[in-house]
């Protein structure tokens, strides 16, 4: 009954996306004494999603339960960062980060520019939709944060990136919003964790192609790859670009891909107005106009709150099916 048509590419392997996040935090706590994690129910309980399971015991006093005070959680992290620490704040769900948004956008993000002192905080946002989660436990909020200056916004789509980008996020001297996708937590698996990675700011060709480019990020990378696989059976070669971080956004890689394919579809799970897909299209239109053989397209969630019921949710956001359908239109145009 509550069917969902969500695709993930790597269903095998031993380490999940969630475990990669936990492993990164464990490594950070072990190797960098400046790191601590602050959030609701993250200590003994290990977090609503278990991203910090076992860490409070292993690192006493460094994985700390917070009162339900998102504004002060971020404020505390800012103060600690000013004093040389490397705080990670876990929001229980990305959606609740609106309660901490003033401290993120107005305080952390303006600190370096105003005072010359960097503010290295990482705010982890369990993001994106899952079946039955509803309007307040499903949001993809990258655009709210990326719009404002002074922040890096990461949106890892793979187990490997979840790991290496979180390590890098803590290393970066600036505020980082780390959008980790809840659907990928358990569904995405890899065989191991890498030692090396692309640096933040570089997009990745998740699948090479020739006929059209899909630019996307986070869970939609997998829906897009599923689309590419389906169309491959018909002889189309679709290139999928995984942005990895949406700010900075790697315009060069997008331009390079579109230079090869001549066609662009931008896909995002967030709301349609002014999100990542708008930014991607604006950049390609200004900087890559001559590369396009057809009008670029975009596909987003619908312009309503994220519905609770799986029947509605499955239609609200893009899926392999709707991406494929859009891509067919693009290929025909």
């Amino acid at each position, binding site marked *: 009954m509550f069917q969902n048509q969500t695709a993930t590419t790597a269903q095998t392997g031993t380490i999940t996306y969630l475990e990669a996040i936990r492993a990164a935090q464990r490594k950070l706590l072990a190797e960098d004494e400046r790191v601590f994690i602050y959030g*609701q129910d993250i200590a003994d309980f290990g977090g609503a999603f278990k991203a910090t399971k076992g860490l409070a015991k292993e690192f006493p006093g460094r994985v700390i339960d917070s009162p339900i005070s998102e504004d002060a959680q971020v404020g505390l992290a800012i103060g600690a960062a000013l004093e040389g620490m490397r705080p990670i704040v876990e929001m229980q769900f990305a959606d609740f980060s609106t309660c901490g948004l003033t401290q993120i956008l107005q305080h952390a993000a303006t600190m370096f520019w105003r005072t010359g002192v960097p503010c290295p905080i990482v705010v982890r946002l369990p993001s994106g939709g899952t079946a*039955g989660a509803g309007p307040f436990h499903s949001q993809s909020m990258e655009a709210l944060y990326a719009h404002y200056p002074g922040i890096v916004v990461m949106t890892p789509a793979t187990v490997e990136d979840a790991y290496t980008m979180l390590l890098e996020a803590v290393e970066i001297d600036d505020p980082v919003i780390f959008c980790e996708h809840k659907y990928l937590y358990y569904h995405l698996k890899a065989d191991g964790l890498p030692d090396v990675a692309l640096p933040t700011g570089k997009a990745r060709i998740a699948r090479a192609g020739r006929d059209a480019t899909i630019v996307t990020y986070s869970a939609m990378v997998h829906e897009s790859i599923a689309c590419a696989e389906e169309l491959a059976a018909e002889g189309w070669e679709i290139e999928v670009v995984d942005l990895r971080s949406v700010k900075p956004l790697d315009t060069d890689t997008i331009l390079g891909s579109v230079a090869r394919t001549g066609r662009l579809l931008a896909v995002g799970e967030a709301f349609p107005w002014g999100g990542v897909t708008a930014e991607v299209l604006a950049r390609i239109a200004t900087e890559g106009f001559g590369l396009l053989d057809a009008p670029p397209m975009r596909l987003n969630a619908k312009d309503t709150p994220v519905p609770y019921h799986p*029947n509605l949710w499955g239609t609200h956001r893009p899926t392999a099916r709707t991406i494929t359908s859009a891509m067919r239109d693009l290929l025909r145009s």
Partner: protein
Amino acid sequence: MLQTSPATRTEARPDENQTSTLTAYRWMILARVLEEKLASLYRGGKITGGVFLGKGQEALSAAIGTALRKGDIFAPLIRDMAGRLAFGESVLEAARTYLGSRLGPMRGRDGNIHRGKPRDGYYAMISHLGAMVSTVTGGLFARRARGETGVVGATCIGDGATSTGSFHEGLNMAAVEKLPLVVIVANNQYAYSTPTARQYACEDLVQRAAGYGVAGYKIDGTDPSACVEVVHEAVARARAGSGPQMVVADLLRLVGHGEHDDFHYMNHALKLAPIGRDCLDVAREQLIASGDATRAQLDTMRNQAAAEVESACGTALREALPNPSEEDWCALSTRRLSEGGQQ
């Protein structure tokens, strides 16, 4: 009070004393039975999304639900099944929301605890804790502005949510405006897994009342007759124009945070202490001891509740689910201004 389908409407009998523990018990047992059913449906895979139960909090919740009247405002929280039913929600509407029926008040767009019917004064909570305090304040502000008197607005909140800025701003605002707001704080010792020692540092949350200039009350939330008495008194004072009232009840959440949570972190000493009593057991004892009801009458009430719950869930389960192709995907009531359909 609310418009509900007559088939499943449970009315307090007109001759019954609304302030009695017996009346509260009627809603308490109905809530308990309904929630047990929902938990079993959840375990059976029939419910997608969260199921959060009020086990152990029924007395407090029913107390506020029975203290409110038609025309009042109520913004319940996650553990207020008893209060919702007492305020007038039908079992069928609750079941429909959980089971995803398209006939439910939220039409599958939102689920479980987020249901409500604002037009009936029954506000639909958002998840962001604390948000409803100022919202009910605003509802009361409007009622007063329109010259309505004798209206009360109530909202329930947990120990954890008292740490939100929204709680503070909302209660302070209600106090400044001297509005008839009743805030029921269910201090159930945990916010999800977090014990109160990590949530606040005062001895008792009721100490906060003075700092807002609102009346504060402290009760044993496991004692149904105390809950009914004190909550009804607080509501009566608000109704009489004494401004905001804050009732803090100590009790213990007798289940996990949600049905996905095994509550392994529970402090067993609390469970064994008086605070760990099941308020339904206490209510039975009180009612039998006072002669207000016999054991047999109480058993009959449970059976009636079970029948009503079975019937409502059966109905809801047979109803059609939301159909995406029938959605207009329009977040604005002013359709001409909506961009929803355009994507």
